[in-house]
């Protein structure tokens, strides 16, 4: 196992392929693992992955394989970009081949719904590896393939993971930032997909820029409340993995979650919308998981609830929008209702005075 700029990427979807490509551009030897032999042959012979990335050319230093053992033993660092639904089973298989000195980095944004398990937790549970991290940020696969400049966040409790992964990813078109808040980076990465679906629906309904800005801001507010409840650092919300990723995903018709939202706005059901795309919209799973756990965590997530209604309860987007707009007015940070503020004021006398004033109607 040589270690100088060598990396394995698991998952030959659009993001896995784009990551493999960008690291090859930065001078790394990349082994890309994917299950389908046909697509392995396509990557190796034609340097394209037409199923996901049409005719975009992949760097020739990306070599594909369908042999997981070979992929696991090829490099010290392994980046895992498998859809969340299959993530655990692949991680389990991977567990047969990896050793404790290897670095595993999740590039998948999503949760396992049942226990809200993050992807890095799955790597931890299914393998013996400890040096685990995640990458997230405004990284639309198609733009990365076009070599457009962007930045990403590598998060891990370990310096070592951040340093080694940054060395692989950083290049002429990719800046890398580090963050020790693995929980925050992963949770924001996953939850922004919910807002992306909402943004797609808003765009599909031609609601204009004001409403889009409202959606993004209030979406970020509820995501960051949820993330904090899980132990994330509040500052992460304002970084690339939070706000950055949210802006990119919500503004781009390239985003699969965004385009799912647009289809829903056209009046399609979830099944119909999903049937039209081969790419997996992670936001669907994530909406289900977040809605399920929000009440347990005591976090109010009105936008998420709304999307949940559209996706799983056959509600129409415009009905949900009406519901959201008619919610009680609230204070921005505390979520306290404007017309029902806390009755207790500073002292007993002040409380009594305030109650009396309210009863008189100001």
């Amino acid at each position: 196992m040589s270690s100088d700029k060598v990396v394995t990427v698991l998952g030959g979807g659009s993001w896995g392929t784009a990551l493999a490509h960008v690291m090859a551009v930065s001078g790394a030897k990349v082994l890309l693992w994917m299950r389908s032999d046909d697509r392995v042959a396509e990557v190796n012979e034609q340097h394209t992955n037409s199923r996901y990335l049409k005719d975009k050319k992949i760097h020739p230093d990306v070599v594909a394989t369908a042999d997981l053992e070979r992929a696991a033993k090829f490099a010290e660092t392994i980046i895992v970009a498998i859809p969340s639904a299959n993530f655990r089973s692949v991680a389990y298989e991977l567990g047969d081949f990896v050793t404790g000195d290897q670095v595993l980095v999740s590039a998948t944004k999503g949760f396992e719904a049942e226990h809200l398990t993050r992807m890095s937790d799955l790597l931890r549970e299914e393998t013996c590896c400890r040096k685990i991290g995640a990458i997230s940020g405004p990284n639309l696969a198609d733009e990365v393939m076009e070599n457009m400049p962007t930045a990403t966040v590598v998060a891990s409790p370990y310096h070592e993971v951040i340093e080694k992964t940054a060395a692989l990813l950083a290049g002429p078109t990719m800046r890398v930032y580090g963050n020790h808040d693995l929980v925050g980076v992963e949770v924001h990465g996953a939850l922004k997909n919910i807002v992306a679906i909402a943004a797609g629906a808003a765009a599909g309904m031609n609601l204009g820029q004001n409403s889009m800005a409202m959606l993004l801001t209030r979406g970020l507010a509820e995501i960051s409340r949820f993330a904090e409840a899980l132990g994330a650092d509040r500052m992460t919300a304002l970084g690339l993995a939070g706000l950055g990723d949210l802006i990119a995903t919500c503004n781009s018709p390239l985003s699969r979650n965004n385009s799912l939202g647009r289809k829903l706005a056209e009046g399609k059901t979830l099944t119909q919308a999903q049937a039209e795309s081969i790419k997996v919209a992670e936001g669907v799973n994530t909406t289900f998981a977040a809605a399920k756990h929000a009440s347990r965590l005591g976090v109010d997530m009105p936008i998420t609830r709304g999307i949940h209604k559209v996706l799983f309860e056959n509600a129409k987007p415009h009905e949900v929008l009406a519901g959201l707009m008619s919610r009680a007015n609230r204070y921005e940070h505390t979520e306290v209702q404007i017309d029902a503020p806390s009755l207790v004021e500073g002292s007993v006398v002040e409380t009594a005075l305030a109650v009396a004033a309210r009863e008189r109607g100001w």
Partner: protein
Amino acid sequence: MQNTLRDAAIVELRSRVLEACIMQSRLPDGMPLDVLVNDTLYHEKKRLEIDRKSPTRDADLAFWSSVKAKLGRGSGEDVRNLLGQIIGRFADEIRGNFSPTLYNVATRVMPKALPMLLNAMSPRRLLQRGIPDIADTIVIQGQVDALRKMSQKGTIILTPTHVSNLDSPVIGWAIYAMGLPAFTYGAGLNLFSNPMMALFMRNLGAYRVDRMKTAPLYKDVLKEYATVSLEMGNHNLFFPAGTRVRSGKIEQRLKLGLMSSGLKAYVNNLLHKKEQPNIYIVPCTLNYYLVLEAETLIEDHLQREGKSRYIITDDESYLMRKILQFTQNLINLEARITVHVGDPIDPFGNRVDPETGASLDRHGREVDIVKYVTDRKGVPVHLPQRDRVYTAEAGEAVAREFLRHNVVVATQLTAFTLWEILKRRHPEQDLYRLVRTGDEGFGVAASLLTEKVLAVWQALAARAERGELHLESGVVAGGDAAAIVRTALRHFGTYHTHPVMVRKGDRVFCEDMKLLHYYSNRLRGYGLEKELDQVLRSEVAA
């Protein structure tokens, strides 16, 4: 531990810390040696201003005055010597005076001595029953065989839960009873100042930790002491709660000091190519019907909302009368203290196969843990930031094991049930108000309490079935709710200043809400409150 080894260990320790000081002083941001000496001098002077009762105060004052005098005048070589002296002094202070002969005597005498002491006030009982054996009082269960096997395969760090100052003698005796050699452990100086505790402590391989000493250099020496001792193959005992848990809960936020020493020792063992480099962490729980210092501890917890006062020097464990009363109860009520030994884990938090000593992942696949600490060339290397994260993970594993190996006793189960009923009866009151105003003497029908205890027991039994906790063999495992309540009432009626709960006619009353809260807290962290919310809310007997 042989004395020769100990001397070698001290020499090793001194040179290690001194070299580290010199090395860091050469870095651009490092602390120059004279500043380091000065900093230590400052902390010690501050301590001596407050710590007026210290028996070594005069000697300390003289020493630090001489340090001060020499510091201004010396050359670089002199400062190094001075630093060496300081480190040596700290190391000597920390080092206990363990003698194997004394240990053997102490452990032979203790099984008889402790109960005899407990019973000394009642010659009649002594005549009637003969001298009770400590083995009847302290029940040792769990992975005892695994612990013995691990102690042959590597070096053990035993990490018990910590609720009482009695924990040290109890675990000390348990180690002896399991046929293990003496464990080294760092005990607070306050334990040595209690004559009764000191009797047991001195001879059980304890080294001294002076919590008043705040100088960073002292803490470095202390940590390195544990590391060297582990490298020398001495099994260590370490309470990861750091201090007695005030709230009565099972500790979940752990201090990782000695566990990080374990990892450091492991890497050093690999570097020195030791034949048995492995360090095993074995969590264990100590479970009491009643806790000696419960009143002081919960008071402190409520006052400080969990922020622990570091040292309580005037609690029940310092009053001979209270200790005697407490231990008398142990004997009279045939209360047992259960020591439950948990499953061994490695310094990275993986579980370990007791047969082979190998680490396993969650699917039982063997893990080569050397790889966790080697660099690209396969050489073991210390990386403090990485190792802190590893240790934090090991700490989480220990916390999980504590929950899993908790042994539920009748007092906790009954206290939990009654507390939760009362809490739901007064939903408008927050914790502090509920504790202050209590239940206003209303009480709970005994039949209702028994019924709810049964419901809680069923939820606990389901968890025990799934391996999430243990039920005490005997009355709790039996599942007879009426018997559980009777046992709890019998114990709660004695010892504490006010009985935690009493039965009057067909009702049960709580007479000390703080203690009720304290004992109920041991069952937090299992999600019982939520699962049984409806059951505990309804006060109508089903």
